[in-house]
């Protein structure tokens, strides 16, 4: 049973804090911008894309995916951090269902992540892309859906989270591989078979693919690997399965 008031409180709190903490916004935007212009900009000069888009344009959906990946995972991990040292106890001791807390946390992480993704998205003219207003709105909606699926994965990870040390383990063994094996930097069809296979099991692959379906529609060889509807179905299923598993694990841990 999901209580909307709980989702509201958790999200309103996160949103207010996000608006107040300008430094958090800037520091979390720094990573995608550095990757986009330093890595993407550099590769753009030496990588021939063969299609009718530049490498920088190809990389753009991947950068939005990266923004979503980091923001969603780390806001989800705060569920456990909050529990040891703070506000989560206030929520846990209130008469609210555990499922509502997990959903609330996923929604609040998704809101923040969507805002960040939208800010990055607004840079599209800088890489020479043209997007209609409708596409922009569609991308924002997609960003929310992708954020939600990644945040639900983050919550499940968080329930295994024991200490600060596991932070770097999560970074190195989950987050970074998820990024590299997602089709963000290379079209899936050009990856070696083994990596291609792994990428098929990576939920972020479908998120970024959905973005490619809208942002670089006419890229041919360099474009999306799957259809938008397949991407959406998988994003939806991933959200459902991980929210379910996350709630189970959270119940057991807390």
């Amino acid at each position, binding site marked *: 049973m999901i209580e909307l008031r709980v989702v509201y*409180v958790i999200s309103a709190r996160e949103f207010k804090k996000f608006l107040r903490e300008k430094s958090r916004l800037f520091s979390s935007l720094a990573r995608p911008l550095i990757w986009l212009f330093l890595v993407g900009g550099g590769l753009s000069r030496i990588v021939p894309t063969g299609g009718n888009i530049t490498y920088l344009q190809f990389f753009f959906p991947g950068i939005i995916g990266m923004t979503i990946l980091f923001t969603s995972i780390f806001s989800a991990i705060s569920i456990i951090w909050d529990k040891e040292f*703070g506000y989560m106890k206030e929520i846990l001791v*209130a008469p609210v269902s555990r499922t509502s807390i997990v959903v609330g946390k996923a929604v609040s992480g998704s809101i923040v992540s969507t805002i960040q993704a939208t800010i990055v998205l607004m840079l599209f003219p800088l890489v020479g892309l043209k997007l209609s207003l409708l596409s922009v709105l569609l991308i924002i909606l997609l960003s929310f859906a992708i954020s939600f699926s990644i945040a639900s994965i983050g919550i499940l990870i968080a329930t295994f989270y024991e200490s600060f040390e596991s932070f770097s383990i999560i970074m190195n063994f989950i987050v970074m591989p998820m990024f590299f094996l997602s089709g963000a930097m290379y079209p899936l069809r050009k990856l070696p078979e083994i990596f291609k296979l792994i990428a098929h099991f990576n939920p972020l692959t479908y998120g970024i693919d959905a973005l490619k379906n809208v942002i670089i529609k006419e890229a041919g060889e360099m474009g999306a690997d799957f259809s938008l509807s397949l991407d959406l179905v998988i994003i939806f299923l991933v959200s459902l399965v991980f929210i379910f598993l996350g709630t189970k694990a959270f119940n057991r841990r807390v």
Partner: protein
Amino acid sequence: MSIIHVDSLSKHFNSIKAVDNVNFDVREGTIFGFLGPNGAGKTTTISILCTLLRPTSGTAIVDGYNCVTQPAKVRRSIGVVFQDTTLDKDLTAYENLLYHAILYNVEKSERQKLVDDALMFIGLYERKNDLVKRFSGGMKRRLEVARAMVHQPKILFLDEPTLGLDPQSRNNLWEFITRLPEEKGVTIFMTTHYMDEAEVCDEIAIIDRGKIIAQGSPEELKKSVGGDVIYLKTTDNLKALSIIREEMSLTGRIKGDELFITVTRGDACLPELIRHLGDIVKSVRVQRPTLNDVFLNLTGKEIREEHPDSMDEIKESVRAYRRRFDRT
């Protein structure tokens, strides 16, 4: 009528018996104190009572509901102030209380009034739109108590409510905590390791290493010490101890560089004591029994002398870090 009923409650963490077969009852409308040193099991007991921790065995009934099988009902009846702050310091005082009211399903039409009343009660109404991180430690603690009262709980749990506060803020906080049972009819369950704070309780349970070792009103407990305590400093405590045992047939104990003896009439006993010990006595003082003596008498140690174990140290340094961090 007991509003909290605890029966053979135990909680083990692997080999540690944090709570070990504890029994007690709390009467409605009273202040019940859990007094004990670091690691005694106070927080663990509170966590079980407020449904955040499952006991290993035993039962806990709060407001007629079982803490394990009816946690949602228990949560509706209680308000909790945790040992470590759970305020959101990046929100305003008002927001912290308002969100609390929503979480507890307080009627929309009443929220505003209840939040304002709570802020008024603790004298922070004028600061309601300030971010909590701009508050002093004492103000934060008061705000936390106010927040726990917003949904008008029947029972209020306070885990070391005055930890880390200066004496003035402590008095300030106690002043309105003790008003609560009379003015709002709430029952208070609190923990502390400050002896003087336990004096405000109607009933105290002294807990050490997970076990309740004494229970009663502050007066009863002090009476149980069996009179006054004489503290002695001598040039040779061991020798003094054997003289007291053999020649006066009194029992004394050594603690630190002092020797203490419990007697019915301290003033009457002094001359005789000095006569027996002669000039090895360096100093003497007589004290009416305090709760500290109760603890000392039962365990042979001061309540505050325990060395914190490593987990406590970690928690303590995190707290210290947060306190520093919170201020910025």
